[in-house]
């Protein structure tokens, strides 16, 4: 690069001298020297490539254009084209180098090594060579190389590279440890639970790198455009050089060849081919820095067109942490009621069951439970110490025709029946996430027409939550299958041009995520299932990131469109002006390399804007 720079400087000196000198023969010699210095390697490459059977490349077209200029007596133009082309190429490769560096620093979450404890010795080896079950040592300041569980020590972890969140996370013995985070202070020993290729950091890197393979419509358009653009422009150039001088009176070959040479100069679609994918890649990279993984450029496009957002309630807008608020028992003691409920629900991992167990506090003797049967969307039936227990929502009571207390309240009621008789209810309530309010109001600013909430909870709870958040529509009491149906119904009602987004926790709602135009899984850090199922993955559990994702997508699309319109219109204008004889070859060179350079710089904004 430095060598090339010096060559171009010397070439420029010769070029300027040639313009000043009066002696016409010396002038031409100076021009030729300047030309060889500036473009000798371009011509050489063109010849080599022709030998390899590769004709219409940029080198060839530039050589023809510049040498052509010499032949029609426009030596200064010939040298100028080559000189400026080379300067432009240099700027362009500088810009590309810069963007490559920015991208690799963005992806700089890859751990280089792992300290593994083997036979009482700490060895430093590549993370790929560590096996599951081995103990790794992570010192302060080091990156966690593999997923694991802390077996000794405690520390604060910087998760910002994965989540975009600046607040450090505390880990203690027994905590899950995710690769890619940075250990801030303590010394940690951890037992490896996943091989490197299955570890979080590698999954994220793979996702971001492979995201560019799912191309957006704009990228597909550019690919098609590039394929026809060069041949068409070259054919027009040939026609322009030959036909007008033959049919127009007084038109000379020299003049029309000069005009046609401009076509050759702008015949590379480089500006588009580089800048449009870079915009998308920058957008995806910027999003990942914010803890938002977008699985493809196509999803950025859909995100930008989002007008309807369907939220799952529990775990998405609410914390999903349920607490027993009230125990209302009839006929039996409250402790007894709680015991029956906790026992009956003990086989389930549903948040409600967990909160029952938590409230019960005592250990559960599994021996005492039998005939457990989960009734999806209703509750559970089980035998606890020979008492037949039903625990679940009002639908369960209705199903078994048990009269129950129809009190409505803010929260979920778990009704319990013992041996077919109503025994009371337990009120469990969830809390709305702190940033859910902000999330909804931010979305309104992003042209989101319709915000819908789906939930399996009862209507009263759902309506209360929705009212508090300012959500338009609520569908409550839905079974998992009903959610798919509801989303399908909403999709069929909307225009095809707009996107329906579904946001869920990615664990129980994979079919809905798949059915929506864009499926967003939330709080997915460390959950492979969620990462697998969704199109867009939000690593933290903040719903406010949805608006951020849409904003990033809109920025990215805007930049990509700017580049497409800018590059194509400058080229078309130059082509029209050259045809009319109003543009010089200088302008054509600008339209080629100058536009590429500007478009690449603009595309880089996609990376920066979103950081």
């Amino acid at each position, binding site marked *: 690069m430095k060598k090339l720079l010096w060559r171009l400087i010397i070439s420029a000196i010769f070029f300027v001298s040639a313009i000043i000198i009066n002696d016409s023969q010396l002038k031409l010699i100076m021009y030729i020297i300047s030309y060889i210095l500036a473009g000798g390697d371009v011509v050489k490459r063109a010849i*080599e*490539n022709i030998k*390899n*059977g*590769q004709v219409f*490349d*940029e080198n060839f077209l530039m050589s023809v254009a510049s040498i052509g200029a010499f032949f029609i007596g426009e030596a200064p133009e010939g040298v100028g084209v080559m000189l400026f082309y080379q300067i432009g190429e240099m700027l362009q*490769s500088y810009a*590309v180098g810069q*963007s*490559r560096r920015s*991208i*690799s620093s963005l*992806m700089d979450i890859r751990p280089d090594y792992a300290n593994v404890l083997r036979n009482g010795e700490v060895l430093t080896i590549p993370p790929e060579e560590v096996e599951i079950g081995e103990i790794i040592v992570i010192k302060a300041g080091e990156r966690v190389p593999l997923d694991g569980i802390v077996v000794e020590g405690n520390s604060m972890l910087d998760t910002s590279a994965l989540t975009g969140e600046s607040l450090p996370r505390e880990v203690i013995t027994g905590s899950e440890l995710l690769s890619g985070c940075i250990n801030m202070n303590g010394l940690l020993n951890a037992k490896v639970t996943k091989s490197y290729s299955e570890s979080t950091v590698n999954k994220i890197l793979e996702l971001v*790198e*492979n995201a*560019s*393979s799912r191309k957006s419509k704009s990228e597909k358009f550019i*690919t098609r455009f*590039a*394929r026809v653009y060069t041949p068409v422009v070259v054919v027009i150039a040939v026609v322009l050089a030959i036909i007008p001088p033959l049919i127009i009176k007084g038109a000379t070959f020299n003049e029309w060849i000069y005009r046609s040479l401009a076509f050759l100069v702008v015949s*590379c*679609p*480089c500006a588009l*081919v*580089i800048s449009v*994918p*870079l915009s998308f*890649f920058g957008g995806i990279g910027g999003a990942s820095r914010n803890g938002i993984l977008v699985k493809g450029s196509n999803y950025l496009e859909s995100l930008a067109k989002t007008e309807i957002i369907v939220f799952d309630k529990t775990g998405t807008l609410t914390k999903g942490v349920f607490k027993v608020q009230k125990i209302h028992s009839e006929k039996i003691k409250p402790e007894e009621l709680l015991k029956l409920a906790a026992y009956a629900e003990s086989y389930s991992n549903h948040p409600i069951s967990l909160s029952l167990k938590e409230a019960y506090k005592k250990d559960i003797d599994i021996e005492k439970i039998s005939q457990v049967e989960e009734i999806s969307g209703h509750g559970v039936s089980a035998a606890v110490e020979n008492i037949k227990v039903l625990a679940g929502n009002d639908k369960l009571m209705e199903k078994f025709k048990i009269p129950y207390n129809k009190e409505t309240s803010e929260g979920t009621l778990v009704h319990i029946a013992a041996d077919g008789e109503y025994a009371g209810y337990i009120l469990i309530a969830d809390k709305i996430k702190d940033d859910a309010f902000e999330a909804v109001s931010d979305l309104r600013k992003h042209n989101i027409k319709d915000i819908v909430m789906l939930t399996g909870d009862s209507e009263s709870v759902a309506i209360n939550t929705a009212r508090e958040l300012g959500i338009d529509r609520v569908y409550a009491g839905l079974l998992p299958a009903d959610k798919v149906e509801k989303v399908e119904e909403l999709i069929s009602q909307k225009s095809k041009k707009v996107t329906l987004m579904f946001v869920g926790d990615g664990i129980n709602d994979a079919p809905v995520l798949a059915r929506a135009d864009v499926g967003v899984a939330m709080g997915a850090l460390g959950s492979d299932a969620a990462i697998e199922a969704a199109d867009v993955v939000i690593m933290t559990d903040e719903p406010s990131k949805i608006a951020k994702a849409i904003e990033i997508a809109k920025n990215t699309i805007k930049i990509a469109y700017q580049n497409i319109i800018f590059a194509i219109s400058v080229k078309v204008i130059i082509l029209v002006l050259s045809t009319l004889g109003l543009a010089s070859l200088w302008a054509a060179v600008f339209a080629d390399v100058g536009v590429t350079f500007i478009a690449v710089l603009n595309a880089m904004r996609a990376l920066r804007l979103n950081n």
Partner: protein
Amino acid sequence: MNKLNQYVEEDMTKTYKLQGLDCANCLAKMERKISKLKGVKSVTSNFFTEKMIIEADDGLMPEIEEAALKIIKKYEPQVVFEEA
């Protein structure tokens, strides 16, 4: 169904590094040419990470790699092509 499974299992995906890529349009051309090689299911490349992912028939992979190298050298002789 069984037959289909066997067929799918024969495909493999490999990632390559293309060090020193200069021209995005050339990369697009390489991608197009390589995707037309016999046994190749899909090719995706990224100009900025300088990576190419080839999904192809397992048995034909050595031939495909050789042909791909030729195509790459034809467009950009300075590129170093190796498995990532």
